[in-house]
């Protein structure tokens, strides 16, 4: 498991029903691209987060497939429609099998 992986997500606390909100996510991860070489000239194997998904109350908002060309500490900004109060679930899937999750609630009213 990669060390020091910490997800950070910014979601507004409240919204009106049907509003489109902007979500920003960042997860600290070194995203080893598989192209770098160590001091002995051997390639360092690729170790990245390969998939990111965002769901709201079980419905998919969006998902992203990541490759080696995504920067260290992958950052995503996107928009979501909020039909009702509920929870946003964010999930990151690591190459090494680890899964990182984060939940943010939003109130409509």
């Amino acid at each position, binding site marked *: 498991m990669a060390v020091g992986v910490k997800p950070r997500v910014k979601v507004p606390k409240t919204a009106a029903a049907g509003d489109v909100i902007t979500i920003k996510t960042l997860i600290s991860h070194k995203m080893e691209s598989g192209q770098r070489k160590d001091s002995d000239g051997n390639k360092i194997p690729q170790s990245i987060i390969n998939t990111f998904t965002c769901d*709201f109350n079980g419905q998919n908002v969006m998902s992203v497939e990541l490759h080696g060309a995504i920067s260290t500490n992958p950052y995503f900004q996107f928009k979501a429609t909020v039909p009702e109060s509920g929870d946003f679930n964010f999930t990151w899937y690591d190459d090494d099998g680890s899964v990182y999750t984060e939940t943010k609630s939003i109130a409509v009213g």
Partner: protein
Amino acid sequence: MNFTRRDALILGAGAATVALLPVQAFASPVDDAIAAFTGGAATTEGGIELTAPEIAENGNTVPVSVSAPGAVSIILISTGNPVPDVCTFNFGALSGSQFGSTRIRLAGTQDVIAVAKMADGSFVQTSSVVKVTIGGCGG
């Protein structure tokens, strides 16, 4: 061995033929990556917007954002990286607008291509040149 002008010409022609062969035999990795996404369908211009800096001082984190109203998924492809695929955005039912922003690595000055798959099954494409001062692939 004496190298006459004629020998040199023949050698040169032979080398050029060998060098050209692989290009004719295989499409470039970038074309392959686009074809893998579109399934070989033709792409048109327009209806997709890719925002990338003209000059990126650091190729390790180049902020890009892409927007294509009515798209179901958008793929980002780099033309100058060792691996052309960058990322694919798939938009779900609750996606507010077909917009995604992220930070990518670029090995050097190159085109970044965005291809969007529309809800009706058509594909649109756009590209943007990014000049990179320091490459982002490590040594």
